């Protein structure tokens, strides 16, 4: 499973959320590069309220903070079974016009 992360062709830094220049060296050499999307789930919350009516029917829903091995952090929806401390893998999905991430507990073979 892969996601795509903005990566600087100049210094190699990866970043999220996407920016307009490299956050480290400010170079205008950003590319979207495949990443395995593996990281650790370090915090979770179960949302019972939303400011957006579009989410009303899905509450409660779980989101979490994932520290990717790639050195960036992001917020993702949590698949059932993913708990803080777990190694998770991110899956990209479409929601409306947006690409969103879902964190799933890594399945060990």
């Amino acid at each position, binding site marked *: 499973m892969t996601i795509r992360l903005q990566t600087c062709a100049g210094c190699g830094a990866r970043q999220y959320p996407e920016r307009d220049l490299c956050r480290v060296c400010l170079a205008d050499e950003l590319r979207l590069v495949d990443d395995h999307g593996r990281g650790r789930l370090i*915090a979770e919350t179960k949302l019972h309220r939303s400011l957006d009516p579009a989410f009303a029917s899905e509450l409660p829903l779980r*989101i979490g903070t994932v520290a990717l091995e790639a050195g960036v952090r992001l917020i993702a*929806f949590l698949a059932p079974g993913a708990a803080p401390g777990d190694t998770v893998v991110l899956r990209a999905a479409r929601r409306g016009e947006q690409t969103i991430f879902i964190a799933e507990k890594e399945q060990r073979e």
Partner: protein
Amino acid sequence: MIGGSGQGGARDYRGIAVACPVTVPYVKQAKQPAHWFIGSALRMLLERTGLDKAAVDGLAVSSFSLGPDTTVALTEHFDMSPRWIEWLPTGGASGVMALRRAARAVQDGDASIVACIAGDTASPGDFGDLVRNFSRFSGTAAYPYGGAGPNGIFALITDHYMRRFGATRADFGRIAVSQRVNARDNPNALLGGKALSLDAYLAAPPIAEPLHLYDCVMPCAGAEAFLVMDEARARAMGLPHARIRGAIERHNGFFDDPVAERGGWAIDCDALYAQAGVGPEDVSCLQSYDDYPVIVALQLEGLGFCAQGEAPAFLRARDFTVEGNFPHNTCGGQLSSGQAGAAGGFLPVVEALRQVTYQPLGQQVPGARIALASGYGMVTYDRCLASGAVLVEGAA
């Protein structure tokens, strides 16, 4: 040093007076726009001091709901011709930042009397609109995950803090409950008349677990303001005032922490007390930025009252009420008063000034001499970026 350089060598704030704390009463919802609240605060500053409007030659303003206007547009609304203005779209940190900037302007002679004002209106739907359009990052990388706004972000910060440092909900409950006691005699605290027990805190409905109802501030409308001027002028006018012993700010500190578990205060804490020539033990009362109880914990740690991770034990060992051994958020803070938008970022400074000049809205800390006011603002993605703090001392 992570996330920025130190600020050793900053000039002191000698000769500067902070005076005339005013509060435009908070209301849950308002028909009047932000301009009304800010202008009303200005009128109160003039009424309290007898100053002519034309004598106010500096104006620093903070607001979320003033758009599309900024400070300069207000000069036209209020027929003013100041020679110095400042615009502070930095929410929870804007009180400390306004104070610092105004003090330097007066020290340097760019202004003689600066009105520092934060005000916001509130109507149904406003808060959702503000959250949706708050920043590019929150729009692309936070809001799509449930649209919970700051409740969702601070739930993650709270969850992480509880796991990492062993804090319990009851620890955070001590903050909310003690502030409700402090709010009791404050007529401006929208929730001041409603007692809150620890049991009621723990039994409250969940909002974004581990956050429950009484961890979250209630959005409202209102304004907070104060004046900055030369100390000789304040004395000549007979205004009770405070001196600035030390002040710091920091932006995007510790940006590599995967979840916020420290705030920028921790970078500059030593510089703050060194500039002031006092220590945490000299602080009569702490006015912290209480958007969520976990952020109070980060301020206790970052401002030198206890080590990182020790706020839960500190909370259990102290009494945070006005008459306790660690008076904290003595007017009830935002958790009991309501969060009047950017005025919430002025509240710690205004309440600190009230306490050290003995002009409280509610209860007075006995013997208050030095107050520490802290700010924290702008959750543009997954934490607030701006932090600051100021130590003020009442002038005898």
